[in-house]
């Protein structure tokens, strides 16, 4: 019985790693399309997103099967419940990556200054997603903590991009549509950063059994 349970848990782990890797690919390809307008990257990103959606359903089914058939307890239960939460975040990352791909052509033409900061945001976000997946794969809570710290950087960059946009509008920029699209893209990156942070938090939960220290959450709520 335990043998089968172990097998299912290992399958869950493999599926989650695959889904995580797909998320990484989705965001990397989205950024590549944003910067290089490379059609292949666009298609790859959309394909990844589709696979992510499928994986989410597969993993969900597997988790429910695990809970119903094996009644996991303690660490195993945490693994399963964290997995259930994590896949929602991963799915959102995939969706937002494909959203970026959708609006990227509209900003490709414009020569707005903030593009450099958007690029910084993109790099920081890719790093966060990669590290959050890495922390899950290696079950390493230290990497997870760095991901959480990293989110502040992405948030800061978002604020900067926003300020620059406001200045551009005030300065009479005539490419309003591109500006708004850029703000959207920046917001998507910021959201992806948040999802990566969530994944890191679930990693910490599944490893230690404790949620992230409440002080941090309070800060966020305020």
């Amino acid at each position: 019985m335990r043998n089968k349970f172990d097998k299912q848990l290992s399958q869950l782990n493999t599926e989650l790693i695959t889904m995580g890797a797909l998320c990484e690919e989705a965001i990397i390809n989205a950024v590549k399309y944003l910067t290089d307008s490379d059609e292949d990257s666009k298609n790859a990103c959309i394909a990844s997103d589709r696979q992510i959606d499928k994986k989410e359903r597969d993993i969900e089914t597997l988790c429910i099967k695990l809970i119903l058939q094996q009644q996991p307890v303690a660490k195993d239960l945490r693994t399963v419940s964290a997995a259930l939460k994590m896949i929602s975040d991963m799915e959102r990352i995939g969706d937002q990556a494909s959203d970026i791909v959708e609006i990227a052509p509209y900003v490709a033409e414009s020569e707005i200054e903030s593009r450099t900061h958007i690029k910084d945001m993109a790099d920081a976000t890719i790093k966060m997603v990669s590290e959050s997946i890495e922390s899950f794969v290696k079950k390493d809570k230290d990497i997870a903590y760095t991901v959480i710290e990293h989110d502040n950087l992405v948030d800061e960059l978002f604020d900067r991009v926003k300020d620059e946009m406001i200045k551009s509008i005030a300065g009479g920029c005539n490419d309003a549509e591109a500006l708004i699209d850029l703000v959207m893209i920046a917001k998507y990156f910021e959201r992806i950063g948040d999802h990566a942070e969530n994944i890191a938090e679930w990693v910490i939960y599944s490893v230690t059994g404790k949620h992230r220290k409440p002080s941090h959450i309070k800060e966020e709520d305020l």
Partner: protein
Amino acid sequence: MNKKIFRSSFLTAFLVLITTIILILGILFQFFEQQIQTELESEANYLLQAVEKVGIDFFKGFDSHNNRVTFVRSDGKVIFDSEADTNNLDNHAEREEIKEAMENGKGMSIRYSTTLTEKTVNYAVRLSDNSVLRISRNQYTVVTILIGMLQPVLIVILIALVLTLILSSRVSKSIIEPINKIDLTNPENNDTYKELSPLLKKISEQKKTIEEQLTDAHKKQVEFNLITENMSEGFLVIDRDANLLTYNSAALRLLDITPPADGNVLVFCRTKEFRDVISKGLFGVKAESAMIRGERIYSLIANPVFENEKVIGAVVIILDITEREKRETLRREFTANVSHELKTPLTSISGFAELMKEGDVSEETVVDFSESIYNEAQRLITLVNDIIEISKLDGRKVNFKKETVNLYELAQEIISRLKDQAAKKNISLNLVGENTEVIGVRKILDDMLFNLCDNAIKYNKENGTVDIIINDTETGVSVIVRDSGIGIPAEHQDRVFERFYRVDKSHSKKVGGTGLGLAIVKHGAIYHNAKISLESTEGKGTTVTIHFDKSKEKK
């Protein structure tokens, strides 16, 4: 085993004890009964004689002790009883023992009480007057004796039980001890029960077999490890669930894994190519793919492992194909460049020839065209010569004669050859140094120096300078060609020694050249075991140093 021996020895002892007690009791009882009968008989005989002599009066004041004495007349009437009133007693003529005594002279009977706890033994004798004298004695039955003796018997049994317990445990332990003491690591060296020796012998034999098999397996493992460890290719074996089973250090290095490595292989690498190859391999299909990781390019090959037609895992081989890919790219570029360089003069030649074929060209133009055709043909010849030269150096098949070459004189000669070319751009050529000799092939050294100086002039600015410095130091001879030309951008500096590599991609004919000059210099330097270094600043000039190492030169 200890328990079993203890239990059986204890049970045996206990059973023996109980049986002994029962048997002894039975025999003793028999014996006592006999005793009582004899006593009764002798007492009866004594009384008989007394009564015969004294008559009935004998019983007056008679003390019968424990026995009941009854005197019965020949008609059965009781005339004396030591314990009961004679008037109350009925006629005894029909009593078994009395009847018997009347007939045979003596008689005996045993009567049990209703509760069976007592029995009465009667013994009767006939007197000479046919009257009968009876003596009775009450005796306890076996049951009564048993009940009476219960306590001491129980105590005895209890003591015996305790004794048996202790002894049994001792005995079983002492039987087991030698077995426990058997040294299983050396089964044959034991001095124990001889019944065990076949078993020990068998164990010893099997031990040897196991040891041999283990050594064999170990040897094979060591061999396998040696082979895999010395592979430059990464080698991974995974099970059906993609868990890592075996790996070599090359795999760890290539995938950048810090040991110990176990668990799911996707933990260490989760790129799309890797995942696809693994899942295909585990699906039962051989898969190949190229993966870019960092700056290296890897080729991944996954082979499924079958057992009873079911996939039980996969073997993954990882090859570092970065160099191969690089060479492949170089080769492709080389082919493209060669065809381009060859095509350009040919196109011109063909164009001029075509115009001349039309015939609508003046004499003057024909001469002009012919010159152009001649020039282009010359260029082609130079190019083909260069290619031949470089392939000669490349193949190292040539055995040029090595001689002592004076570099200073060689440089002077080259300067004189290039004077006109330099004068066109008003470039001054300066030679610094003194007579310095190296051992080498004059033709190749000439080509090298000529190409360097030629480049220094070609890529120079108007009124520029070219310095040729020949240095003879203790470590070796160095030739430095320094120009004040356009320089080479940093990103191209690594590649200018490649064949046909041009900083200016337009392959402009303005400066001429085949794109093979520096490649020839490089291969010539390799031929002479010399080192080339290049320093350049864009817009300021380039310095190329060829250093001939003295220690290597002598070889």
